[in-house]
């Protein structure tokens, strides 16, 4: 079975015991994203801080309903980007998106992606890519809103957010 290459142990671990889950205060922006094809949803908050004159990710908190891939992906993402500068986190996000679009032909850089390399197998299953990207796209949207000064306590529009997720894929 190919299932093990898709559902690597790291993914199953994060799925069973998600990190950083739960919505926390305070936050600079909050978004609600859905995957319209399956109804999976994530509410995600970001808090930014100043790191030597550069914006950085102070916290990412989220509440999500969804499959193992989407849950684990949000958990790994939070692990990886909390504490990074926004610029660094956006680079990781870009590398992850590239990996997801690789149709199984990507060569993920573990130095950049860390545990997120475990999602390499997802790229071979086009129907699941949106699952893996749900949390990342929500984070990008929330961060953009926070940077635009729409936060704190800004609220993303669900329909726009869903479209944003689609356009990225």
């Amino acid at each position, binding site marked *: 079975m*190919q299932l093990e290459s898709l*559902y690597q142990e790291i993914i199953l671990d994060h799925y069973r015991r998600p990190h950083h889950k739960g919505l926390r205060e305070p936050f600079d922006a909050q978004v609600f994203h859905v995957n319209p094809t*399956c109804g999976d949803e994530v509410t995600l908050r970001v808090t930014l801080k100043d790191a030597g004159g550069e914006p950085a990710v102070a916290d990412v908190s989220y509440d999500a309903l969804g499959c*193992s891939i989407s849950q684990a992906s949000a958990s790994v993402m939070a692990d990886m980007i909390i504490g990074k500068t926004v610029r660094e986190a956006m680079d990781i996000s870009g590398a992850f998106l590239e990996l997801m679009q690789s149709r199984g032909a990507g060569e993920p850089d573990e130095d950049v992606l860390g545990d997120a390399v475990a999602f390499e197998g997802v790229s071979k299953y086009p129907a699941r890519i949106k699952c893996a990207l749900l949390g990342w796209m929500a984070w990008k949207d929330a961060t953009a809103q926070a940077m635009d000064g729409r936060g704190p306590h800004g609220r993303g529009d669900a329909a726009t957010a869903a479209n944003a997720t689609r356009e990225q894929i």
Partner: protein
Amino acid sequence: MSGVSAAQQAAAAVDDAFAARLGAADDTAALDVEAIRADFPILGRAVRGGNPLIYLDSGATSHKPRQVLDAERDFYTMHNSAAHRGAHLLGEEATDAYEGARVRVAAFIGADPDEVVFTKSATEAINLVAYAMSNAATAGPDAERFRVGPGDEILVTEMEHHANLVPWQQLCQRTGATLRWFGVTSDGRLDLSNADQLINDATRLVAVTHQSNVTGTVPPVGEIAALAHARGALVVADGAQSVPHRAVDVAGLGADFLAFSAHKMLGPSGIGVLWGRRRLLEGMPPYVTGGSMIEMVRMEGSTFMPPPERFEAGVPAAAQAVGLAAACDYLDGLGMAAVAAHEESLTAYALEVLGDIGGVRILGPLSTDHRGGAVSFTVEGIHPHDVGQVLDELGIAVRTGHHCAWPLHRALGAQSSTRASFYVYNTHDEVDALADGVRQAQKFFTAQ
């Protein structure tokens, strides 16, 4: 419901007869499934892991037998031309093929051919009615019957596929009418306890599924139609999940309109049907406009053809119509009673074997009483995407998600579900494989 009239009793009798046909197993010859499977080339291919294909997703779309593929190929090979245009031989043959298909489809549902409108899908068929109703605001006096506005009510159900819900939400938004709906009971039936309040003098149209694409529930459309007609309301039945699976006769249906799709009944994609009562179609303004549907065109304005042409703008999908007619031939060759009996047997078996698995919750009725062959379920602790992924690995194709019926899932307390749906080519062994696959998913995800 109080105050049951003779008409309602008659309608209930029709509903019961329909339900009886669902279970009319005794006097029908069993399908020769092995011979049927040989007609479907795609069932011979291997899928992931080299596994044979176990296709349990016919509720989404069905496969096509060689006879349907051949009919389409023959049209393109020998008769391809634009129907209803040109006086050349191929044009005549294409027109004959297209209109012949209309006669064939009409016979399949007991309708008159000029009551059969070809659309691109069941979805478009429903939109056609919804847009005709808002277009009626600016159409002539013939369209009076279809006008809706503030104070009027459109009644739907919480059980609907989005295709029989969103068009009515949008109609209300365009016209100022109010959307109301029947709820569902915890076992996935329509809650008709407040039917007398919901169907009232303000009700202009009732849109209801003829069989749920999630729970398989068969609502009493005839009974609802009798109540609606007593208040002067129109009735639209969504037959996308009923017409492919059992004999549907519009004469006994009760509804005024019936929408269905070819691709769910062994036919091609790209064509659907709206059946409507002639006197109603005659008063309806068009939805899509352009070539074919006009009577006279001047720069200042145009007049339109009578139905069904009024609703068929553009070059007709003749090859698809021919394919649909071939699908009707194929299904009638099997006998729709036998088709229904076969699916009932599979459904009963699936309800039993899935129901026996700990942690599995079946959405909707647990018996085949007034229930067709869509079996949706949740598996405790495992998201449907993950269940579906394990099944896919085993070569088993199912639907996962909300199946375009998000409100119904919410009403049943499920975020999403896994759905197995059956057709003429499915076997009891495939149902066993499904149950084994669900157990494997449980093993995989609950390990450690």
